[in-house]
């Protein structure tokens, strides 16, 4: 083995290992590559599913792999493999070089100066895995949660709880000397109910996610979540379908932040500039949103699902102000983004696994709190909709976004009235951002998963309650 697979289990990197990485990086640059990056990953996951009052599936998985990326000018070649042998890795490197028309020894000058000393973000994190609850403790906690769904739900016909714990150890070595290592612990809990009464059905779910908080599952207030889910499911069970049209909307805090994530956040990733699919390409310093809106993307919030110590290109995470008082300040950028668009890296190079090249992606993305109370937002509307809980959403190649409303209520004369279901909010970022006119003072975050060019990653969305002056509601 050129890169001994066990180094990740032992959490130690010796001089031979470093020398072997340097051999590969030197091999690439001496072939004429402008830049070579090696990403090594070891991943260990345990997930399980509880249905009604039984554990129905326990799914452990583990694996290791390497991603090698080579740049020549703006172009790049990327190869991933599970083969850690010297022969396998050199084959991959040759393959990546060959994609760019390069071959071993084709360049006489070699710019590679060796790796810097290890920037070890994993120090003090090895104990995280040990501090996690055992599988027995974990299953008991989720069994308790589904049992609480029954206790608090008269119509809770189908009850499901799921849990996933991922320990991911990553190492990045690149020809600019970057040498960094991290260990990450992610946990997520899902709790869902399908309420049924004759032909009426409603399903409501919540996801709780954390990073580097080994006691997160055991500390979770499952009774509170179970009560909240049941209350929502029962209210939505007999709800009428929303009438389609355009109307003002108040979007609740926490997962309501998905509107910013989909409508605007993706369009502020440099990959969108590269593709020519963002309307904000030349808008740095320009007003793109209502003055009431300031938006942040960061990886620092302790315990948040999208938090990272370093990104997947070895850069320390940071807080990035995307929009300040409606003015576009920064794009989220990775190494390729910086190279191709000129926007400086923001520690946002992220990927699902070694099988994906990193790309500019969001971390914890949220709209900053404003001066109002949530009630003031609702009171300002004569006829509109209150979106208490959101489902998923997406953004298309032309900036058109959509997302579904899991739990909604009509607003009439400044007051919440009847529950409504079946609403989809659709629009375009350039149109909707100036219409976010009021932000409340109750900023809160929610965990989620985001799928895009570099795979599925953990993220956090968030916002206080916000008011959108007018938005298209798809309904019946």
């Amino acid at each position, binding site marked *: 083995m050129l890169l001994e697979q066990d180094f990740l289990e032992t959490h130690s990197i010796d001089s031979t290992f470093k020398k072997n990485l340097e051999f590969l990086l030197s091999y690439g640059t001496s072939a004429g590559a402008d830049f070579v990056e090696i990403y090594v990953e070891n991943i260990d996951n345990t997930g399980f599913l509880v249905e009604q009052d039984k554990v129905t599936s326990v799914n452990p998985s*583990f694996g290791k792999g390497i991603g090698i990326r080579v740049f020549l000018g703006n172009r*790049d070649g990327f190869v991933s493999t599970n083969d850690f042998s010297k022969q396998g890795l050199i084959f991959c490197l040759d393959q990546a070089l060959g994609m760019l028309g390069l071959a071993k020894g084709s360049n006489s000058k070699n710019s590679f100066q060796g790796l810097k000393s290890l920037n070890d973000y994993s120090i003090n994190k090895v104990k995280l895995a040990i501090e996690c609850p055992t599988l027995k403790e974990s299953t008991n906690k989720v069994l308790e949660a589904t049992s609480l769904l029954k206790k608090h739900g008269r119509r809770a016909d189908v009850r499901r709880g799921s849990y996933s714990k991922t320990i991911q150890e990553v190492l990045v070595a690149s020809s600019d000397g970057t040498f960094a290592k991290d260990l990450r612990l992610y946990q997520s809990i899902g709790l869902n109910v399908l309420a049924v009464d004759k032909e009426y059905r409603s399903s409501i779910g919540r996801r709780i996610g954390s990073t580097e908080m080994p006691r997160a599952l055991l500390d979770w207030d499952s009774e509170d979540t179970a009560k909240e889910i049941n209350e929502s499911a029962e209210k939505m069970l007999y709800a009428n379908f929303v009438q389609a049209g355009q109307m003002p909307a108040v979007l609740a805090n926490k997962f309501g932040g998905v509107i910013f994530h989909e409508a605007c956040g993706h369009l502020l990733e440099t990959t969108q500039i590269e593709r020519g699919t963002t309307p904000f390409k030349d808008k740095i310093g320009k007003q793109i949103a209502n003055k009431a809106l300031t938006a942040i993307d960061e990886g620092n919030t302790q315990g948040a699902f999208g938090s990272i110590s370093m990104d997947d290109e070895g850069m320390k995470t940071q807080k990035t102000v995307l929009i300040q008082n409606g003015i576009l300040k920064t794009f989220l950028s990775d190494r390729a983004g910086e190279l191709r668009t000129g926007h400086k890296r923001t520690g946002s190079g992220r990927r699902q696994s070694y099988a994906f090249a990193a790309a500019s992606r969001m971390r914890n993305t949220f709209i900053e709190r404003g001066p109002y109370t949530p009630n003031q937002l609702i009171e300002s509307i004569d006829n509109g909709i209150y979106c208490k809980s959101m489902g998923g959403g997406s953004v298309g190649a032309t900036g058109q976004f959509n997302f579904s409303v899991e739990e909604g209520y009509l607003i009439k004369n400044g007051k919440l009235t009847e529950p409504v279901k079946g609403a989809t909010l659709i629009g375009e970022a350039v149109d909707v951002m100036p219409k976010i006119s009021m932000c409340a003072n109750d900023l809160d975050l929610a965990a989620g998963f985001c799928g895009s060019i570099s795979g599925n990653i953990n993220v956090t969305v968030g916002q206080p309650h916000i008011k959108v002056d007018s938005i298209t509601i798809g*309904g019946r």
Partner: protein
Amino acid sequence: MKESLINESQLRDQLSTLSKAINIKKWDLGATISKDMSVQIDKGNPKQIKASQKNSITIRVWNSENLVGITSTSDLSEKGLQKALESAYQASQFGNISETPEFSIMSKAELPLTSRPIKDSIGVKALLASLKNAEKDLLNRHKSINSVPYNGFAESTFERAYINSEGAIRHLHGTQASLYLYAKAQEEGKKPRSSGSIKLGYGASDIDINDCIKEAAEKTLNHLNYKPVKTGRYLVCFKPEAFLDLITSFSNIYNARSIIDGVSLSRKDSIGKEISSRILSLNDNGLHPSNITGTTFDGEGTPTQDIQIINNGILKNFIHSEATARIFNVMPTGHAGIGAKVSVSPDWPVVYKNKNQKAKYPLLNYQKTKDEFILVENLNALHAGVKASQGSFSLPFDGWHVKDGIKTSIESATIAGDFLRLLKNIIQIEDDGIYTHQGVSPHIWIEELTVTGDK
């Protein structure tokens, strides 16, 4: 003779030895190894070129109490397999006592004969050259097409194996390729529009690149002159891809796993009930010749089959794994994954018209009808807008408002309804079944659905 990526006999012997060492008597495994290559282009220049070699193996073990545990890994070394076996054994302590999967009684049955060709790789240079020409050609189709932001040409070779401790041994070798071109066009003073095309083949050389370019250009340009559509209830025609998206999203109606779990719109006794218009028939046929990505056995080694799901509007069969088939007292249908709790998924929907039943409006034709209707081309954001367990959907779509035979692209709209009611309201199924990359279906007409537009 090509070198095999999976040596199934060696894998079987390794597992036999390793399992004996820790006293595991009953086990099975599913393994996949693939080699993939893909390229992307940006304005004539290669943007990203990717290659990967991936291993994946899932091992299931039965402990002395016949409880099942599994583990998945990408590490196919002896050490990796041993760790996976031990981990699966530990997981079996949490096995579900009330529903234990067994080996499929069809895991040694004869596999269907298929003519799946194995194609040689054309290599990265040829992929790049073809994609570069395709992008150039697409950009030259019309001055309004200013970029092809999403594009890719990929080819892969893969092998799958299923092996169990009672002697079942399955192996499949396949190749496949895909091309997608997604263009963006914009005219002065108007919003950008985008659409595209995807083509699949057994190899890159099989793919009709010109057809992909033509389809991507036509679909994009057809939407340039858009207008808002008035919110209301309309006669609707679903193009094949759109209807297949819907039927797949609501496949819980014929999925035995979903029925047992209580998240289906059907019940165990729904077989024999009329669930749709009498003109609709549906098969799930993973062996259909248009199913490029099909395989001959499922995750439990059961042979892939052609199953009739709906005939003349009557629900005839559910799709099954070994465990669900045992509960329903039928044979497994070849739709299983592999797991401690085995998932069940549809293969390849084939929708067709029952010629013995007369449609309510048999003259409706998406190219000839003069009546006002909405023609739905693509449904978007299915993951967010489909409430499968509730039976409802509210989805953004790309399509046209058609009146007096004139098609006008719709600027931005959603379509909403109940799936079961939609099935009952099918008033015409056109004659021609269209092969798509997700199944086979003719154009399907629905009497009335709500469309939300901009005014």
